[in-house]
């Protein structure tokens, strides 16, 4: 079976989990595998119910003190055991802060090829092959996994979330024995930021502002537009370096990769390091007063003009839509 490692937060499944279930179904068809198994580690009962309701054949759960908080060594052991239990040819994780930390450890233990940060999956002469964006999006590499078991991290927003299954899935509790003496690193706490907006990497609309906004005060315009659209707020390294915005909002090579349906940016020049993080966006709308700004080369729609003059009107127009 294809194995997908789900993610949860505060008792509910994260959006990536349903996307992973959908990716697993697709991989099942590609590989002719005999089903989809979802794995929940240290799960809250509510999250288990939500996972059982997803389109899958088997829901594996792992409980116990060793899994109370994230600890890569213990969690990797659980994933490896689950993969063996269902004879998984492919183990899927999210290309999220969690998946990026755990996947290479799982792949290392299993001596498996890790296809990182992929948006889709194909099979060529019996091998799993992924197209990956490399060199800051300037090159696309076709990478094949040569091992019997493959591990892959799936980009958020690349697959439409799976809906409910047609037949009820089974649940099985896995006993994973972890000697506490072999766990040398563990999450002590997670400091949550009060989330008033969707997460940047998960959002289906992102509004970002750059140094062209001139003053950190002017970001209230970006925030207002974002809130009207139910969007996440993003920015560039230039404003982060200037101390205008937090690094958690930075999009690009040294920040986050986004893949929304709509990416609206204002006062952003479009440096390669920024662009590499936004190429997954379906539609890109840019507002810049310089008609020659490189951002327009990748924009589906562009407005040449002063962002500080246009934004208030834009906010009014969007508000009028209701």
């Amino acid at each position, binding site marked *: 079976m294809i194995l997908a490692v789900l993610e949860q*937060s505060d008792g509910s499944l*994260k959006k990536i989990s349903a996307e992973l279930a959908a990716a697993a179904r697709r991989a099942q068809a590609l590989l002719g595998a005999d089903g989809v198994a979802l794995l929940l580690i240290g799960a809250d009962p509510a999250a288990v119910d939500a996972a059982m309701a997803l389109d899958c054949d088997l829901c594996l759960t792992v409980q116990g003190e060793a899994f109370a908080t*994230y600890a*890569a060594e213990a969690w990797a052991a659980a994933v490896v055991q689950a993969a063996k239990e269902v004879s998984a040819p492919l183990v899927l994780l999210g290309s*999220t*802060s969690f998946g*990026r*930390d755990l996947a*290479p450890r799982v*792949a*290392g233990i299993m001596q498996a*090829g*890790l*296809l*990182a940060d992929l948006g889709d999956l194909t099979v060529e002469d019996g091998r799993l*092959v992924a197209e990956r*964006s490399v*060199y800051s999006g*300037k*090159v*696309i*590499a*076709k*990478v*094949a*996994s*040569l091992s019997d078991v493959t591990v892959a991290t799936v980009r958020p927003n690349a697959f439409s979330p799976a809906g409910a299954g047609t037949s009820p899935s089974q649940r099985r509790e896995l006993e994973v024995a972890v000697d506490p003496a072999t766990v*040398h*690193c*563990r*999450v*002590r706490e*997670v*400091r*949550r*930021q009060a989330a008033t907006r969707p*997460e940047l*990497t998960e959002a289906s*609309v992102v509004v970002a502002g750059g140094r062209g906004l001139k003053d950190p005060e002017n970001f209230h315009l970006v925030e207002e537009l974002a809130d009207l*659209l139910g969007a996440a707020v993003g920015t560039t390294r230039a404003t982060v370096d200037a101390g205008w915005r937090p*690094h958690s909002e*930075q999009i690009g*090579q040294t920040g986050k990769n986004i893949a929304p349906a*709509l990416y609206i940016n204002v006062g952003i020049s479009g440096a390669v*390091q920024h662009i590499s993080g936004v190429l997954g966006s379906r*539609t*890109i*709308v840019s507002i810049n007063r310089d*008609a020659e700004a490189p951002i327009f080369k990748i*924009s*589906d*729609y*562009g*407005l040449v*003009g002063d962002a500080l003059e*246009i934004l208030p*009107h*834009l906010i009014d127009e*969007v508000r009028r*839509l209701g």
Partner: protein
Amino acid sequence: MQVVVLVKQVADTAARIKLADGKQDIDRQSASLIVNPYDEMAVEEALRIKEKHGATVCVVTLGEAKAEEALRTALAMGADEAARVTAPASDPLTVAKALAQAVRELGADIVIAGRSAADDEQGQVGAMVATELGWPHVTEVTKLELSGDAGVAEREVEGGVEVLDFSLPVVVTAQEGLNTPRYASLPGIMKAKRKEIRQIAVDGAALGQPVLETRSLELPPARAQGKILSGLEPAAAAKELVRILHEEAKLI
């Protein structure tokens, strides 16, 4: 304390990237080569550990002779020692095994790598080195504090910050926000030129078969020319954009 920093020489993606004939690799001759930006942060963090706790900082690269330039840059920043690993390694797993072998030979209490290499953008090698050594790892670290044989690391996660406790030895990977790398000083550059670079050869038999293969590289298809509106009054421009997004593209 012994700190090993893994540094990779990569093509500067701000410059032009050309593909080599055969499309298996980029044209390295025309590429401008730099130290992977995250690895500079890794070097900086090692130097701060040295300044605070006292340590020997050894920088290690796996690559061709030209990659020694990256080691010299790190030496000029203030690293004490450097080693170049040669091995028939091609994918993240075999590279990690070869680097882990070098770490065993050099000895280390902490290994610092970059979160990912700006060329292949795999983000795998650091955690794989840890797995190979049987050590814990923390990736994408934005804050690191050591005390005795333990430490605390912070990493950004979706919607918050994760705080982790670990014991040494450990592998951590540097994420933007950890620090701002220093520039090499002129005396540092002079001194770095004379430093000896240790050579470590790792035998192919110790690495096993690669598990990933790059089949081909392509330049991405150009995005279709978008619709650019200019010369409109701000109010008219905003109105037209919202009309397009609402009625034509049906995105809002």
